[in-house]
């Protein structure tokens, strides 16, 4: 039985875990789960995502994260992610900067069970050296090829529209890296707008791309992406984001208890 409460699911994530977060910026982010992680006072999390916003900022601002592996962290129209920025500038959080492409490459290698994967030559970018990406000789000729090593998250934390109680899940609309991170991670924690009977999910089978085999928790959390969007159910709450973007640490501490779950 993997259906449980948000509290129980978040308890599975131990301090120091490497977690990968679903969605993109304000779209289908596991916001409620991230708030619960913060309420439980997690420490030293390593947070991975191609393009983070609210979720990454919150974990950085409340001292839950020690490292961010990402290509972008910001709020788009609502300015920079202030708490993320400050934490990095003050050295409280290490920003292991990537480009979204290398985050994807690292997840692909992990999903395929291979130690590294070749990528296009982006070696003029400063972070290639900082991240330790290495060239190999192409054994089929043609010179050297840049590579990225696998990164296997301990948890993929994915917010979906519908899941069954075993943890099979569908995603409506853009996937972003979510199906890939589901394949790459050791374990999956799902938060879902609703838990539905198996038969309902089967009727929508062409959208059901997360099989249950490594799902360790399914949590029903209506509005679980709030203040982000979860189409077709709700749009982003831009007013809340505008307010959030100006919160300092004290404001953040209140925010995670005020916005429930």
């Amino acid at each position: 039985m993997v259906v449980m409460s948000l509290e129980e699911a978040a308890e599975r994530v131990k301090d120091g875990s490497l977690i990968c977060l679903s969605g993109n910026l304000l779209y289908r982010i596991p916001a409620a789960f991230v708030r619960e992680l913060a309420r439980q006072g997690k420490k030293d999390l390593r947070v991975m995502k191609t393009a983070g916003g609210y979720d990454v900022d919150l974990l950085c601002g409340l001292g839950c994260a020690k490292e961010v592996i990402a290509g972008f962290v910001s709020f788009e129209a609502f300015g920079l992610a202030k708490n993320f920025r400050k934490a990095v500038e003050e050295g409280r959080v290490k920003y292991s900067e990537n480009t979204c492409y290398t985050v994807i490459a690292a997840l692909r290698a992990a999903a395929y069970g291979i130690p590294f994967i070749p990528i296009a030559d982006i070696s003029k970018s400063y972070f290639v050296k900082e991240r330790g990406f290495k060239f190999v000789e192409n054994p089929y000729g043609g010179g050297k090829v840049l590579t990225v090593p696998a990164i296997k998250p301990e948890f993929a934390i994915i917010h979906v529209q519908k899941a069954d109680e075993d943890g099979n899940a569908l995603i409506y609309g853009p996937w972003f890296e979510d199906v890939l991170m589901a394949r790459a991670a050791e374990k999956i924690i799902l938060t879902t707008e609703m838990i539905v009977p198996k038969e309902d999910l089967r009727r929508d089978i062409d959208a059901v791309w997360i099989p249950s085999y490594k799902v360790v928790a399914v949590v029903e959390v209506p509005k679980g992406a709030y203040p982000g969007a979860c189409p077709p159910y709700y749009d982003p709450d831009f007013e809340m984001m505008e307010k959030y973007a100006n919160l300092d640490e004290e404001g953040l501490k209140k925010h995670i208890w005020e916005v429930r779950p």
Partner: protein
Amino acid sequence: MSFTTLDKANYMISAMARLLKDAESAFMGVASFLPFMAIVIAKKLYNPDLIWYSIVGYNPNPKHLPMSTVHPWISKYCDAKLQLAELFDISARGELDVVFLAGAQIDQRGYLNNSHVYINGKRIQFPGGAGGALLHATARRPIVWQGKHDRRIFVKEVQRITAAGKPYRVVSPLCIFKFDEKAGKLVVDTIHPWSSYKEIKEKTEFEVNDAPTTPPPTEEEIELMNRIDPHGIRKIVLE
């Protein structure tokens, strides 16, 4: 003649839209209001077959400029699903034509810094370059844009190279640069009517040249811009 912030945004959008007249495909990433407008206009007025790879799907046909480039609205009007991963693969295979890239710092070589700078030993953190490192290096015609133009942004050499590549054009609120293949650096192509060689020289760390005036947006373009973005969200970028 005086120009409002909206006028300036319109000039930039119009210039970018026209650069897409002969484009095969275009991609824009997050936080890209001006490229969003430019692509919609190019598809409606100049290049209906332009392929638009969006972060939320393939060939969207949105009615309005949303407050976010991953707004759920957009994905409703796509022709097919598209993963960000596939878009990157398309570019890695050398099949992406135009990509729009922003630069917190842009240097004479066309390299971008979206990572961080140190000012008086203090780190100033930017968001990171998103997909830029790959796209700048592999797309055929990267178009770089910036909502501000000063000597801290247009620098001789970026402090950190987030993305290296040769821009097809760089669109700023003062002028448009193009890449001079022989010299291997940016040169001014046109100057917006509210600016001047003198102003650009003052506000750019690297050497610049005089150039003709950027042509204005057409009425048709402006009308379309106002229809897509009636509330003028596109101004935000220049404020």
